């Protein structure tokens, strides 16, 4: 794992937390969406908070895809767990939602649980990688897998 890769993971965390918070704030302003009034979705997107939230989630998506290109799914998701802490802080101090002690404990457990993973290897090295994507592998040369294994060691 290089510094640049940790930076990408940090980006996944921050963009996801900030994006979700802005969406939440915007959706509270636009009010409930009803199944019978789906045009409410269009109005929701016109709300600036929702729009910025969507932009942030796009940034999240770009960093998330980058991370998934060199790390396991079960590594990337937990490695970004710090987002829950950021979300709780934002919900409490920016959106002024009530965060009960029980929820704080839940957030702490989640963060602790996922923190477990961060010290482990980020990618599963498949000896017979052909089982994963035989016909449609476009470019994962053996060289790259070997370099990842070396970097980890």
């Amino acid at each position, binding site marked *: 794992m290089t510094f640049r890769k940790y930076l990408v993971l940090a980006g996944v965390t921050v963009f996801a937390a900030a994006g979700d*918070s802005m969406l939440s704030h915007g959706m509270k302003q636009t009010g409930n969406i009803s199944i019978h009034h789906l045009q409410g979705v269009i109005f929701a997107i016109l709300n600036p908070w929702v729009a910025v939230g969507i932009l942030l989630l796009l940034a999240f998506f770009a960093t998330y*895809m980058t991370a998934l290109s060199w790390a396991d*799914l*079960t590594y990337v998701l937990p490695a970004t767990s710090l987002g829950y802490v950021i979300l709780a802080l934002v*919900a409490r101090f920016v959106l002024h939602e009530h965060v009960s002690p029980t*929820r704080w404990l*839940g957030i702490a457990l989640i963060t602790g*649980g996922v923190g477990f993973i961060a010290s482990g290897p980020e990618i599963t090295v*498949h000896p017979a990688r052909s089982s994963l994507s035989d016909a449609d592998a476009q*470019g994962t040369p053996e060289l790259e897998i070997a370099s990842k294994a070396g970097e980890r060691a």
Partner: protein
Amino acid sequence: MKTVYTWSAILAIVFASVVGDVLLARAMKQVGDLGELRRRIGFLAVIGRILGNPTFLLGVTAMAVAFFSLLFALSWGDVSLVAPAAASLTFIGNAVAAKIFLHEHVDRRRWIAAGLVAAGVALLAG
């Protein structure tokens, strides 16, 4: 009634997210390390290669379903419940799905993490 709506939307998010995450993770492994790829063939070519991957497009479709479920959920429930609950349940679903469909090595460390996250989710819902 609002609680039922919120949790239905959360479950919809989780299912669509797991399907989407697994498809996207598989697609990005097919494409290869983006950093190295960008140095070799350039930024636009990398974008083209990603967008031309059918698995990626399917994954994005699933993620779009998850995103609109999220919009519904957020209009009914608090962000400090909806976001962690959906993300954490998705994480557990992903641990199982990644082992089955992506053949990732989900070791004890990763299962313990899944258990702690599950406990955390239960507390968030309480």
